[in-house]
């Protein structure tokens, strides 16, 4: 019995340490030179079902977030494949969700996002495709420490292939380049750390 308690304590201690080992990365150095932590918030976003998505949807959830658009000819298709794989890996973890923000709300209507979401085969509650105005999405990208802008020839946007990992308190705990297999392995490991 004593041995079991000891093992349990060791396991708990280990989990605690692992969670602690993922640093809080969501902070900025404000104009006064101070470091200020911030948590991710949502305002005026709608998901693929036309439902409002707010900060409350994040609470007590572990999530990964990225930026994409459905007509993307470059990095989004391979990112999508990796995110489908991650969604399937954590399909039984109810408090894990994926959030993808469209950077092209002009073309990515709710209808388009719904069809795009259905094609992934992942349940809507597991993978939220969010839409808002370009200005609001740019502000959201700022919270996720990235940005996007249209290319000069109009065929594509600059947008990052990185996904951010968010903990239950809406702090960013990691960044992962989703186009690199080794980074996907690291992302899955870190999701598991936060879930456990």
């Amino acid at each position, binding site marked *: 019995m004593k041995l079991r308690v000891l093992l349990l304590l060791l396991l708990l201690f280990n989990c605690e340490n692992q969670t602690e080992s993922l640093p809080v990365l969501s902070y900025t150095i404000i104009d006064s*030179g101070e470091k200020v932590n911030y948590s991710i918030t949502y305002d005026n976003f709608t998901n693929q079902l036309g439902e409002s998505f707010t900060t409350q949807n994040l609470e007590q959830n572990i999530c990964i977030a990225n930026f994409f658009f459905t007509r993307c000819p470059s990095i989004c298709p391979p990112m999508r494949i990796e995110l489908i794989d991650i969604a399937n890996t954590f399909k039984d973890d109810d408090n894990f969700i994926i959030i993808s923000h469209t950077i092209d709300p002009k073309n990515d209507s709710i209808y388009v996002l719904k069809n795009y979401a259905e094609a992934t085969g992942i349940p809507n509650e597991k993978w939220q495709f969010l839409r808002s105005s370009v200005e609001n999405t740019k502000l959201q990208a700022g919270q996720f420490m990235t940005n996007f802008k249209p290319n000069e020839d109009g065929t594509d946007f600059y947008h990052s292939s990185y996904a951010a990992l968010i903990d239950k308190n809406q702090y960013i705990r990691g960044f992962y380049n989703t186009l690199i297999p080794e980074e996907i392995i690291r992302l899955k490991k870190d999701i598991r750390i936060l879930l456990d």
Partner: protein
Amino acid sequence: MVFIFMKSKILKYSVLLSLFVTIIGGIYYLKLPNRHKAIVKTQLYHKLSLVDNTWETYSDDKQISLITPTMVIDNIYKSMEGPKVVRSFQLDATKDDLVWITSFETKALSTNEVDQLSNDYICHTNIDFYDGEHYSRWQLNNRIGEQYPRLTSMSNGIESYAFPDGFGFPVFSNENLFLSTQILNQNIKTEPFSVKHKVNIGFKPHDTSMKPLMSKTVFVMLPYDSKNPFQGPTESNPNMCLPLETKNHSYINSDGESLSGHWVVFPGRKTYSYDITQQLQLTDSTSMHHIATHLHPFAETLSFRDQTIDSTLFISKAINYKDKIGLEKVSYFSSKTGVMLYPNHRYELILQTNNTSGINQDMMASMFVFLFDKEMDEKLKIYNANK
């Protein structure tokens, strides 16, 4: 009896299917270019644990050392062809201290991780940062995505260097950095052998007297005919290059012209030039304090020139080995005083090559240019005042 018959039928079809898949897979593999074969082989070696597939990381408050998994050399691997490994890392994930990256070193090691091998087995070691995370922290979001976030690169002939005293690249110790390192083997055709790379990155604790540098990558690009890319230069199009391939290191400029940063050099001497004003993206005058150069064998010099005042600011000299293919040394620029660059000036790179091998070789010519970062310096002054 029926069961045994079915079982043998299943076995028969399984064997046939396996054979079919193996043959198709084998044909597909044999048709792959050397570079892709190396990727497949390295993945197999590591996934099947046929060689050491782990990274070793050692760090203290001055340096982080990363030792790669084992990479197997079983062939001649020219630039960009060899086995490579990648990983992200943080200088110290447990701390959130501002530190200054000041030096870089890469070397080839034996699999015992102690004995140093020839640097002929180093193609390049690239260090990138995640520009989103890096610039957002300092509220410099307008810089995200402006250029590829490469901090620097070390390569054959220029395996280590340090910024001039008092200069560095400021990062927080838990910031995500990214390492990619690749094998080179221009000469040795023997039985397969194994190599590791060891990468050392030196850093210093924050000091208010330090001056921040920003990295810009400038490189020679040459036009090619996108309709007939592998035709190379012709009598009617003598300025066209023969690109090594049209996927990686290929670009389209604002005039719709296809350009390659990795091309074939024919036997003999040749001089190439390329206007790098747009690559520099200078918005203000600033000083240049460090240049690390990336060249391939048979390059002789790469010059950084101010076209506007017709002045050569730096000539990077490459010493080629006499008895084998490879670069013994490539010189770099490092100066506390620096050289001024101006946004209304035009700048160019001039590359001189001398392919003495008698056969076609491949070429790249880049400079990782480090400029005093005025905007970051202002941010740091405020940060220091608050401290």
